């Protein structure tokens, strides 16, 4: 079935064409073209709902890099179906909303290009079967989200928020990539389906646990789980449609998707269970707790999103416990946590999307989102208020809205799981429902804040930037549709359950699903159960806390700003920059001596160290030729001349001594039977000396080095050490000769190359290529010297480069 692959590609193609279309029809809002894409995709996908619900799956592969098994394989099953519908469905609504939200003065084509990129990437994430391709799209979502957050890039806050989100999500993505690599190493395949099939045999692989942790890292960063949640509030700098789409309904749920997708792989493991549900619950608590203190409506929603995501995450964690058992009637009970998670996932998208749009409307019409300045809007924008009410109450878990159902199921699941006696649940299990309950109380409180602070109370006209008036109709379309869903799902939950969630359950629990039905019926009323009491408790305590919130808000000051993770993030970044600047500048002195010192030290340590570590040193005098008197005197002359250079008082003396060295080497070459070398050496030496003389005339006199004694001493030690290592290696090589040289061959030079001078035959024939190249070297040097001297920088060139 090609449709799925095409469904991923279409948004990308559309993104390419958007700028052109925008140029061609500048008068029509480009959003209408963009709307076409998600709407079509939604309809197309929706047509598959019945077949998917019937247990059918679709796989299709397009080859990308088959050599490494990285292929563009798509897989449409229940789980991806839910997400795909959310992406395209909410996507369509958001596009409609944005058409009215964004004025045509903005650079709309950029906006829709990013949005479509994101949509395509997101579809890619949920449809990909190949984990590498999944990763590709995963990072693309991060990037497009980065671009969307920084849509108003001239604002500093937007840039900061974008930077933070990109850094955190991409880093998490890298972790996930490593995890994927490890996982593919374990399972020897890149296909998720195959991994699920074979992983059972490999759970004791040493890399199994690290892979799990790293993949979770990716999921947690993307889904803004504690403590990586800090990027999400800052991401609210994005235009509101973006927040509604990415940061509540879709992108943050990619992490959830990943957890769900990998539950069949890792589920049933204790670490997985505790990490996912533990982190989820912690996030639930921390997010809801922090949401209350926010004064910016969008920030409040951001924290609420964090907490809701934590809740969904924890439910997936709890549900994974079912995999620990085989199929039995008990284990089916535990899967209902997962069922609830999927259900809440859908519900959350509906009500949170609606709420974000409401906030966007308020912001758009009133000009502020600050809770301290808002109030009394109920009379001015009644329709908006109604939607806000529906959304908030659903979020708070009140009937008759869909949030109530999933919240109830969440309590049920938490209670059930706490009864288990695996994974040390007998000791810590009771914590689960307790934290869940506390988190729900806070959720209730902030939901109330949204409704009552914004729409009730005194209307403070003087504090608002714009005169308040009702929302435009077009902007209300999308939130109303979502609100209808919120209510609708409450009354017909089993429609969703049967067609969307059940197939997804089959994906998450493949081994259980073959044994029997995992489906559940959602009932609105199931008698006076503990979970109902819990809900009532939530409402009671929540109302109490809401009314007296000014009395207990003091506890927030217990958590000073400095101690938040957000501050930690900024602190570590600045520390990192300052620290690395300090470290780098401490060794990058720009002083040649220091650089050479590093090299020499490295040489001494590495070569000397290895020499002694391997015991390579050996010394053997027997092969040596005898030394005559003349040779002794030449050698002594050279040693004296060499050492005297160090103490030479004028540069000319030094050059002269260098000349002595050169000529003496020529004599040594004579002694060693190398006439050609001797000839070359003396001529080159003379020319070099002449060069030195020519240049030195224009250079300053050789001053005495005013170096501290310590520097001198270090230099001396280094020099001697370098000499010693050099000699030791040379001596060891002398005594450790392994083979005869190949040069015997060259002694037939006369027959082979027609020359009696072997050295010249080698240079001119056997190794003529070297000679040719060295001629080129010489040529480069010659021309180079010419250009160096002739091409001088004019004054006008000395501008920026010398800062």
């Amino acid at each position, binding site marked *: 079935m090609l449709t799925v692959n095409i469904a991923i590609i279409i948004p990308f193609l559309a993104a390419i064409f958007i700028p052109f279309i925008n140029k061609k029809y500048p008068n029509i809002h480009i959003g209408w073209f963009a709307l076409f894409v998600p709407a079509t995709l939604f309809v197309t996908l929706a047509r598959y709902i019945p077949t998917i619900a019937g247990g059918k799956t679709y796989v299709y592969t397009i080859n990308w890099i088959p050599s490494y098994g990285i292929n563009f394989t798509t897989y449409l099953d229940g789980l991806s179906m839910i997400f795909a519908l959310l992406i395209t469905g909410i996507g369509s609504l958001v596009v409609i909303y944005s058409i009215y939200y964004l004025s045509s003065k903005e650079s709309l084509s950029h906006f829709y290009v990013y949005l479509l990129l994101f949509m395509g990437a997101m579809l890619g994430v949920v449809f990909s079967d190949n984990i590498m391709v999944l990763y590709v799209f995963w990072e693309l979502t991060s990037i497009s989200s980065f671009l969307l957050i920084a849509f108003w890039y001239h604002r500093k806050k937007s840039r900061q928020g974008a930077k933070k989100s990109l850094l955190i999500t991409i880093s998490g993505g890298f972790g996930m990539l490593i995890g994927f690599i490890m996982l593919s190493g374990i399972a020897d395949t890149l296909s998720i389906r195959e991994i699920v099939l074979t992983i059972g045999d490999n759970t004791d692989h040493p890399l199994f646990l690290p892979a799990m942790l790293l993949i979770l890292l990716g999921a947690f960063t993307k889904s803004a789980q504690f403590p990586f949640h800090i990027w999400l509030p800052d991401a609210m700098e994005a235009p509101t449609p973006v927040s509604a789409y990415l940061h509540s309904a879709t992108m943050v749920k990619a992490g959830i998707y990943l957890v769900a997708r990998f539950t069949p792989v890792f589920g049933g493991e204790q670490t997985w269970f505790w990490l996912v549900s533990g982190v989820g619950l912690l996030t639930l608590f921390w997010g809801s707790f922090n949401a209350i203190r926010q004064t910016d409506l969008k920030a409040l929603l951001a924290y609420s999103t964090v907490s809701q995501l934590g809740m969904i995450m924890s439910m997936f964690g709890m549900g994974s416990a079912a995999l620990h058992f085989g199929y039995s009637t008990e284990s089916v009970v535990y899967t209902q946590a997962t069922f609830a998670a999927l259900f809440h996932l859908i519900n959350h998208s509906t009500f949170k999307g609606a709420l974000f749009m409401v906030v966007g409307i308020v912001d758009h019409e009133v000009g502020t989102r600050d809770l301290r300045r808002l109030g009394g809007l109920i009379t001015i924008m009644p329709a908006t208020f109604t939607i806000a009410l529906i959304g908030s109450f659903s979020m708070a878990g009140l009937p008759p809205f869909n949030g109530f159902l999933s919240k109830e199921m969440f309590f049920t699941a938490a209670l059930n799981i706490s009864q288990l006696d695996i994974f040390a649940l007998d000791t810590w299990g009771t914590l689960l429902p307790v934290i869940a309950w506390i988190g729900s109380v806070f959720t209730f409180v902030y939901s109330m804040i949204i409704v009552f602070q914004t729409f009730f109370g005194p209307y403070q006209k003087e504090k608002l930037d714009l005169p308040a008036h009702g929302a435009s109709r077009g902007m209300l379309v999308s939130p109303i549709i979502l609100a209808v869903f919120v209510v609708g799902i409450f009354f017909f939950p089993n429609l969703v359950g049967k067609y969307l969630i059940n197939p997804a359950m089959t994906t998450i629990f493949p081994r259980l699903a073959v044994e029997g039905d995992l489906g559940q019926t959602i009932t609105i009323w199931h008698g006076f159960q503990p979970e109902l009491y819990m809900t009532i408790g939530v409402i009671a305590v929540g109302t109490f806390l809401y009314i007296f919130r000014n009395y207990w808000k003091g506890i927030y000051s217990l958590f000073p700003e400095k101690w938040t993770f957000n501050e930690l993030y900024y602190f570590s970044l600045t520390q990192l920059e300052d620290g690395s600047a300090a470290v780098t500048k401490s060794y990058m002195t720009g002083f040649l001596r220091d650089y050479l010192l590093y090299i020499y030290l490295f040489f001494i340590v590495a070569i000397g160290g290895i020499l002694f570590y391997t015991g390579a040193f050996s010394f053997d005098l027997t092969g040596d030729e005898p030394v005559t008197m003349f040779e002794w005197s030449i050698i002594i002359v050279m040693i004296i001349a060499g050492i005297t250079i160090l103490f030479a008082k*004028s540069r000319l003396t030094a050059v002269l001594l260098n000349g002595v060295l050169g000529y003496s080497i020529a004599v040594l070459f004579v002694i060693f039977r190398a006439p050609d070398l001797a000839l070359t050496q003396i001529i080159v030496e003379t020319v070099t000396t002449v060069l030195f003389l020519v240049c030195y005339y*224009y250079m*300053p*006199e050789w001053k005495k080095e005013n170096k501290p004694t310590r520097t001198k001493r270090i230099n001396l030690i280094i020099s001697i050490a370098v000499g010693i290592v050099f000699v030791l290696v040379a001596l060891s090589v002398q005594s450790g000769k392994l083979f005869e040289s190949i040069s015997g061959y060259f002694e037939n030079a006369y027959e082979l190359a027609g020359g009696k001078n072997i050295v010249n035959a080698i240079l001119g024939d056997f190794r003529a290529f070297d000679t040719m190249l060295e001629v080129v070297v010489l040529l480069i040097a010659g021309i180079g010297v010419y250009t160096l001297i002739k091409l001088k920088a004019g004054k006008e060139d000395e501008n920026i480069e010398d800062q």
Partner: protein
Amino acid sequence: MNEREILEFIAVLLILLGSILSVISAYGIVRFPDVYTRSHAATKSSTLSVLLTLSGAFFYFWISESFFSVRILLGILFVFITAPVAGHLIIRAAYRSKVKLSEITIEDELHEVLHEEDKEFIHKDVLEKEDREKILRNEDKQK
């Protein structure tokens, strides 16, 4: 000892003579008091020594291997021509750069001709390089 061996011996004797001369001139170069006197040792006796040695080598090759080496002859010729010139040049340079004469020098006739500008007769090894650079830099500035 046949004739050839005698000739060879003579050739080698020439070489030995040259080497002895070279040591003598080396001794001179250490012992003489100033550069002008030292140049006598270095250029005159040293040249003689090298001429002797080279002739010895030339004869040796001619005699023992009947190899008439043009190269050695050229070498002899070359040293013969250039060594005095080199000595001349270096001493002139020394004098112009005002290398002081030995304490025991009695008369310096050239001084008034060449160094009339500085009556004080500044004794310096070489003209200060720094001064030259100063001049050079001033020129640059003027440009």
